[in-house]
């Protein structure tokens, strides 16, 4: 297994290089005039104002020169210090977030991670449970109801579902507000004098670590709707995969054998069939989780959660090349690492799998 892991890790830099070249070429389709908009903070006062700005940032240099500059950085003409350069570990300055890209990721990632952590467990738990029920009552009433719900889950756009929930539970009932915290809680969390320490930047966990149950409760109230919204679609997916793999497992000879031995039906289902049927769900669960970590654009947009997905969408709308590149690299890193982890876990769960 070790050679397999090493080989997969060796491919990683190639994929990162490919991804960065892909994004870079994409954005180079735009003219320097279109890309300079990001740097222009107000209307230039002279006719050649934009031209000068294009020159200053080297936006009309050949594409390979610009890519190289992003890789190794650039010496500032006035001060002589070297700025940027991904190979020096500097992802550059994000105009969208108004801070270095690295800082932006550090600030935004916990929001996405918190959402992912809260979503994944109920999502998989409920999905697996219902999938098993659906398979056990194959083609009966329960199965039909669950299948219908899961097809609707596929068909209902995340943004429609999210907005409908906000309409009912926020606008009408005022139970679950958008964003991550209420004003008073934010004031407490970000105040330098309150002695509140942000350990993880995940507000629920921080609140518990600081022993502030009121802030914890507030953070929970804010995360309920996004978690439900995020879960529904993926819950439909999990249910479906679990159902089919459970149906498959129930047809296997070892289940018949277990029944023939006279084992209780509960033991047959829980210990023999379900355990084996869980394997494909583990794969999908891993992929869903990695997807959540890279940011869920729509959910974060609707609920105004300042996570990775919202930052990415804003950067794309601004054509902010540096931010997009940084986030894309981070995402592909997550993606490759996540897939690798899933593969390895897979080999642990299922002894029949040989990684080669």
């Amino acid at each position: 297994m070790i050679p397999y892991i090493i080989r997969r890790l060796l491919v990683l830099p190639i994929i990162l290089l490919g991804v960065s070249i892909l994004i870079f070429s994409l954005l180079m389709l735009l003219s320097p005039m279109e890309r300079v908009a990001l740097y222009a903070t107000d209307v230039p006062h002279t006719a050649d104002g934009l031209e000068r700005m294009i020159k200053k940032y080297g936006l009309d240099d050949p594409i390979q020169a610009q890519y190289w500059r992003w890789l190794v950085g650039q010496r500032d003409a006035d001060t002589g210090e070297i700025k940027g350069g991904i190979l020096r570990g500097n992802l550059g300055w994000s105009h969208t977030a108004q801070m270095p890209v690295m800082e932006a990721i550090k600030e935004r990632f916990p929001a996405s991670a918190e959402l992912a952590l809260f979503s994944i467990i109920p999502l998989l738990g409920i999905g697996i449970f219902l999938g098993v029920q659906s398979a056990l009552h194959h083609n009966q009433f329960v199965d039909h109801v669950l299948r219908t719900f899961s097809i609707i889950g596929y068909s209902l756009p995340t943004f429609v579902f999210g907005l409908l929930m906000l309409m009912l539970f926020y606008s009408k009932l005022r139970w679950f507000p958008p964003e991550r915290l209420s004003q008073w809680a934010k004031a407490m969390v970000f105040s330098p004098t309150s002695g509140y320490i942000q350990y993880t930047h995940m507000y629920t966990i921080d609140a518990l670590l600081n022993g502030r149950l009121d802030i914890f409760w507030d953070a929970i109230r804010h995360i309920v709707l996004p978690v439900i919204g995020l879960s529904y679609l993926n819950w439909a997916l999990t249910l479906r995969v679990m159902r089919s793999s459970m149906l498959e497992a129930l047809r296997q000879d070892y289940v018949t054998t277990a029944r023939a031995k006279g084992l209780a039906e509960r033991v047959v289902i829980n210990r023999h069939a379900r355990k084996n049927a869980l394997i494909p769900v583990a794969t999908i669960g891993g992929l869903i989780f990695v997807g959540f970590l890279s940011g869920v654009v729509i959910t974060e947009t609707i609920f105004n959660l300042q996570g990775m997905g919202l930052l990415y969408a804003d950067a794309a709308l601004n054509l902010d090349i540096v931010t997009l590149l940084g986030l894309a690299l981070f995402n592909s890193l997550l993606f490759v690492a996540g897939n690798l982890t899933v593969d390895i876990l897979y080999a642990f769960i299922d002894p029949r799998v040989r990684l080669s």
Partner: protein
Amino acid sequence: MTIRQILKRLFTNPLSLTGIVLILFFAAVAIFAPVIAPPPPRARDPYDMPRYGYSSVPQPPSSEHLFGTTEGQYDIFYGVVWGTRTAFKAGLIVTAATVLVGVTLGTLAAYYLGGIDNVLMRIVEIFQAFPFLLAAITMAAVLQPKLGRGIWAPMVALIVFGWTTYARLARGDVLSVREREYVLAARVAGAGDLRIMLRHILPNAIFPTMVVASMDIGTYVLSFAALSFLGVGVQVGYSDWGQIIAFARNWIPVLSDYWFIIVFPGMAITLFVLAWNLVGDAFRDILDPRMRGARGM
């Protein structure tokens, strides 16, 4: 299984029959859009939603505006009706184009193997290292200045990052039939590469890809609407369901007063996608009972 048998099963299964009826209904709305919601005289483009005033407050449904108006007084009923055409175009063209590109490249890779296959699979890996929606957002944002704020920028964006799934599927399926006896027989008989691929390999390898594609029409409609919703799709005021729903974003604290901005277009898009999913689901069950319940990831 013959086409006739497939159709018979699609029409006898209650779920897929519901889907077919819904699709026919939407098709009728799309075809008769100029009758149901006639564009105002001197309209520049019938897809532009007509405006009735400039007030910034959405108006509830009334006898003049059946589904109400958004801020800026765009008529929602008009947009929902003409949006049906947009949805059909987005779903069908994007699916057809992604399948065409993906299957062509996947088949070539599996047929010639070697260098072509290696290069193509690395490219697929790079494209897939991006979350699909994020990639499409970037591409659509870049394409907008080039292709204008119509339906083409988001559609091309979805195609550019959508073909990889089908390339992978087609490659796998072609690999499994390329050494079969009938392919070898055709080669011995002196058939050319193109003829072998088109007449002998593809007809025997294409079904699984088609099944996945039939289930993806709805997904592409959703992605297209999502791009419009996020502001990298069609321009404000274009008849597109996602774009109309985007108007709701400014009214979230008082959304229950302006429910009609979400409910009508939201219902349209959900039913539209549901219809395709119902048919695709049944289609897959019929063609390949073994795949029942497992959706290609």
